[in-house]
């Protein structure tokens, strides 16, 4: 197990190298020149050339990439093009913290609604309650964020005046409620469906019948046999969906004015802030790789039948 994990971890930098190379090469293919953007509409060509020199954009592509990699190994992800003199890491860290907080609190909302609801619906299969709950959650899931967010703002911030419209002051503030609901509730549908399906799966298994047969209480069967086994497949998607949420939180951050990575990354794209984009990409890749690993490890923790071998 330990060998397996460390081997997977050792592969991660290789993965990062190629993912980085891919993104880095995109930067030389895409139109738009960061030097021209920095110089503005009225700069003379010499000034643009000086900026290109300073940024090292005139070097051959591989030289640029290898320099980037060697700096990255030293923990230096470069300076932002847009925010001159600022370390990319220094720019990213506070924003990342906010995005992470937002995602964690939303994820919590997703799980707390999705899992019990899925279980509940599965236990009521065949009654009107199951399809009603499923359809309702499907509707919620189908609503686009750019509809739900303004709607929630209108109701809770403007009409009822309970919560501020914008800003972020940590997980435990009223400002976190609307974004967490906007981002978390639709995701609950996915987990509900999963939970429902896997619960139904478990319900038909022999050991459940046996448990009932030997006179075990309903609650005990539900908890110890059904719910626990139904959760196994769910674990596999936990990591992935957390990584995936970062994509979705982008819009929520923009609408609610949350100073997370969303605006920063959006600007980085439009301003051709390649060092920042690289850092963001590498971060995203790392997160996915780790989520993948986490999923595999969770498997073996929850289901003793699964063993990881090196």
């Amino acid at each position, binding site marked *: 197990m330990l060998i397996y994990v460390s081997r997977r971890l050792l592969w991660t930098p290789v993965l990062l190298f190629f993912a980085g190379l891919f993104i880095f090469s995109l930067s030389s293919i895409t*139109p*738009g*020149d*960061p030097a*021209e*953007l*920095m*110089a*503005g*509409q*009225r*700069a*003379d*060509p*010499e*000034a*643009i050339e*000086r*900026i290109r020199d*300073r940024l090292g954009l005139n070097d051959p592509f591989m030289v640029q990439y290898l320099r980037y990699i060697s700096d990255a190994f030293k923990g230096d992800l470069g300076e932002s093009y*847009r*925010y*001159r*003199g600022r370390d990319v890491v220094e720019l990213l860290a*506070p924003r990342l913290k906010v995005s992470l907080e937002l995602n964690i609190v939303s994820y919590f909302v997703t799980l707390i609604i999705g899992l019990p609801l899925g279980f509940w619906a599965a236990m009521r299969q065949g009654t009107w309650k199951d399809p009603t709950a499923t359809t309702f959650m499907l509707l919620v899931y189908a609503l*686009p*964020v*750019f509809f739900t*967010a*303004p709607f929630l*703002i209108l109701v809770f*911030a*403007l009409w009822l*005046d309970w919560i*501020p*419209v*914008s*800003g*972020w002051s940590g997980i435990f503030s009223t400002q976190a409620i609307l974004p967490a609901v906007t981002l978390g509730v639709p995701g609950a549908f*996915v987990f509900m469906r999963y939970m429902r399906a896997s619960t139904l799966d478990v319900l038909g298994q022999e050991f459940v019948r046996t448990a009932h047969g030997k006179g075990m209480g309903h609650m005990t069967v539900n908890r110890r046999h059904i719910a626990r086994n139904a959760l196994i497949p769910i674990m*596999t*998607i936990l990591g*992935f*969906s957390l*990584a*995936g949420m970062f*994509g*979705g*939180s*982008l*819009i929520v951050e*923009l609408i*609610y*004015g*949350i*100073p997370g990575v969303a*605006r*920063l990354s*959006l600007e980085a794209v439009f*301003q051709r802030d390649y060092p920042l984009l690289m850092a963001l990409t590498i971060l995203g890749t790392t997160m996915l790789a780790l989520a993948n690993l986490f999923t595999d490890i969770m498997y073996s923790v929850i289901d003793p039948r699964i063993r990881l071998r090196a």
Partner: protein
Amino acid sequence: MKFASRLLIVGAAFAVMFAIGCSSEEPTATPIPPTATAVPQPTATAVPTEAPAVETSSSVAPTATAIAAATSTAVAEVTVEAEAAMTAEETATAEMKEAEAADEEEFDSRRGGVFKLLGSDPTTLDPALTTDSTSYDIVTEVFGGLMRLTDNPNEPVVLDLAESFTVSAEGTVYRFKLREDAVFSDGSPVTASDFKWSWERAALPETGSPIVKEFLGDIVGINDIVDGNATSASGITVVDDHTLEVEIDAPKPYFIAKLTYPVTYVVSRDNIESGGETWTDDPVGTGPFVLKSYEIGVELVLARNENYSGTPAFLDEVRFNLAGGSAMAMYENDEIDITGIPQAAYERITDPNEPISREVVDVPPEFVTWYIGFNTESPPFDDVHFRRALNYAVDKELIAEAVLGGRVSPAYGPTPPGFIGFNPDLETLGFDAEKATEELNMSKYADADSRPRIVLTAPGTGGSPPAWLVAVGDMWARTLGVDVEFQEVEWATFLEEIDNYRLQAFSLAWSPDYPDPHTFVDVLFRSDSQINQTKYSNAEVDRLLDEATTEQDPARRIQLYQQAEQIIVDEASWVPMWWGTSGKILVKPWIKDFNISPLGGYFLKDVWVDEIDF
């Protein structure tokens, strides 16, 4: 797994959709170059005309001081009227004393309060690097220079840190007397050597200013520094602590107007040398505000500069929310004090039955010219008749009225009305279907088969070209049978394409940097100008522009620019589309004297919060 990946995809798709949705506003803002503030008139430039070494201080200073001192509109009006009626200096002085007394009282009652607005991160806070309007709006509040712009149409350029200046008989040597009381926000005095150091520093290649040549390059020796051949400019002489002498390469009357642009501002040597590359985290300037705090992407706070040498600002603080959000909702929830009106909410907000309609404030039209430019070396736009045909075929009045809701006025030349050098008698290529057909028949592209494919590029990320552009295409198709394809590219790409002259035809806007016709006619159409995007070249125009550059008689100078402009319009390298965009914004009723100037800028120093009423 399947669902998980769908989550990812859906998330990404939304993100892209939203990015597109929310940035569709951006292109309209970004292409417009940085702007300042002024409604200039030909006679208003503080430039001496015939007499050698005219002492301008007597004519300029009182008005400037009066305006600076009397920030309230009421008092300002009185003072200005008094100025107009009585030119005797004594009367003006008496008037000023009264104004000052009234001022003090008024200042106490207006002092205090916080002004909150939605902003975006400035690209830089270094005056030498400032080229975009977001940075400009902050930098002009924190820093200052010899001259500054005002929102007074009759006096667009006034003295700031300079107390007076004189110009030599040849018009090439400027001698500035600095205000004795001028201090930086840290309390240290501003001297002539600070200016010399600031300008030379702006020119250093390490500083990397993209626009220093354009704004300071006239000074003898500056270009040598930019090119790395020198570190000191012989054209800048420190006569004594409060006297600065500047020699420029030719008698260019618009030089003084350029000194309102941030790259010419004074910076503190101590501040920059001790602050390193991130010295702008704690900038020391001479503007009415100081940077209190700045957290990238979160918030930028300006506070009153207690050491300001003019009348101090009323506001305690100005808070720019940089995290974004739903502007309209934030405004209605009192989280910000001003906002634009989104198209979707326009009807509700301007409905007189809605209480919020009382908060609607009109914004005067900006000095900006929107146009369609043609690359005059790229077929079919290498034929003047073809270009003229396209000009005649566009009914701009209809577009201004029907497509743009009458918020703009149709444009017929580069220089907008009200701007110095505007020519009301310009002969234009207004809508005329017959002439359009005539011109097309005269061109070598009369036959549709001989015409190369035409692609018109607009900056933007809305996915489809703006409605007005589609209308233009439709008019060309109907009147001339000329078909055009549209393509929209986001700003970064657009800028690169246009800098390399790879765009055949494009839509863009231009607004002035300083109140002088040079900023329109010269920089965009002189054949060797670096931002002549249409590659337009005409020897006669070049000759007129060269002559205008150093012409000392203001009236004659304007005439030369107007002659050049007439030729430019006739040769139709542009289809001028419209001038200005007047609009409406929402301002909370307790925010007073928030005035947007025709150049899009504002003066936070004048803003005050009325706490009694609300």
